[in-house]
């Protein structure tokens, strides 16, 4: 007989490992070792990655952002103690689900804004003031944060928003009436705006 690692494998291993990983997530949370918990959920704008620190939701990422790359970045910038552990994201996932089925207009979630700094974070803090179904131009948002000339920097702040959807950068548009750029792609932006307009 030829002895290799496979020789000691079991057809039940995948199921056993899934269960062991689930328990590891729970134990890590209980021991205070779960610095970043994440999960992925389906949505009308594609698969979304949701990640949270003990402080709150830290990242929402579209498929086109490349979830593996997003997780690598979280490992560098927040902590390498990153585990797929859906439980911490239960509320965020439920609220997003309600949003997409038009049963929720405002997100009520603790947020961790540590991935953005300075002016970008300032803009992102103000974005939730743009209500559901409304839009503003980059220039209007610049005025809102007290720096009317900074519309380009507002554009950058929207493009680098670590919490799209929940922090509604999709409600900020160019003055020319086009949808403009969006971290989830222009189609996703149009989808969200139509969803909110139809409510």
């Amino acid at each position, binding site marked *: *007989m*030829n*002895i*290799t*690692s496979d*020789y*000691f*494998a*079991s*057809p*039940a*291993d995948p*199921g*056993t*490992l899934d269960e*062991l*990983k689930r*328990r*590891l997530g729970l*134990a*890590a949370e209980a*021991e205070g*070792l779960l610095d*970043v918990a*994440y999960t992925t959920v389906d949505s009308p704008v594609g698969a979304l990655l949701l990640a949270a620190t003990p402080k709150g939701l830290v990242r929402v990422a579209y498929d086109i952002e490349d979830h593996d790359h997003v*997780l*690598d970045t*979280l*490992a*560098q910038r927040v*902590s*390498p*103690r*990153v*585990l*797929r552990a859906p439980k911490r994201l239960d509320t965020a996932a439920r609220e997003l689900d309600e949003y997409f089925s038009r049963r929720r207009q405002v997100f009520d979630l603790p947020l961790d804004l540590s991935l953005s700094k300075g002016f970008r974070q300032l803009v992102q803090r103000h974005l939730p003031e743009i209500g559901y179904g409304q839009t503003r131009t980059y220039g209007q948002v610049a005025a809102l944060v007290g720096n009317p000339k900074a519309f380009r920097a507002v554009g950058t702040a929207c493009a680098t928003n670590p919490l799209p959807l929940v922090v509604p950068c999709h409600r900020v548009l160019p003055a020319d009436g086009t949808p403009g750029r969006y971290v989830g792609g222009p189609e996703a932006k149009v989808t969200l705006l139509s969803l909110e307009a139809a409510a």
Partner: protein
Amino acid sequence: MKQPFEQVVERHGGTVLRVCRVILGAHDAQDAWSETFLAALRAYPDLPDDANAEAWLVTIAHRKAIDVLRTRKRQPAPVGQLPETPTALGIPGAEDGDLWHAVAALPEKQRQAVAYHYVAGLAYAEIAELLGGTTDAARRAAADGIKNLRRNYQGATTEGAPS
């Protein structure tokens, strides 16, 4: 650049489970796996970026397994601890059961050497560091372990084959 810990679990979880099962049998393997990965998660930020993650995990699993084996020795069980019936971990079939009984019957050093070399792929020098003793002793323990397995386990893979 340090990977997210999830990738470490994804990549090495299966190997560590097999290592634990060879050393401890099906019954205790899951607990040892859990303790190994929880300890690894705790220490992960301090692991050098260029470290061999699998060898590091096997080292932790080795220590956790020794704890389990020590606990067992303190227990008044009169017989060496055979694994639970294979179905406890969903290992189907009587032949597999025979394999795990043959593995469980190996002396501790041989079982460890087989697990670390044939399952985890560690070099004999690395195994010698884990078990103490020389590289040659580690190589001998693995070879003796395999010889004993061949003798005691007539698995499906050897059926009808000239030995």
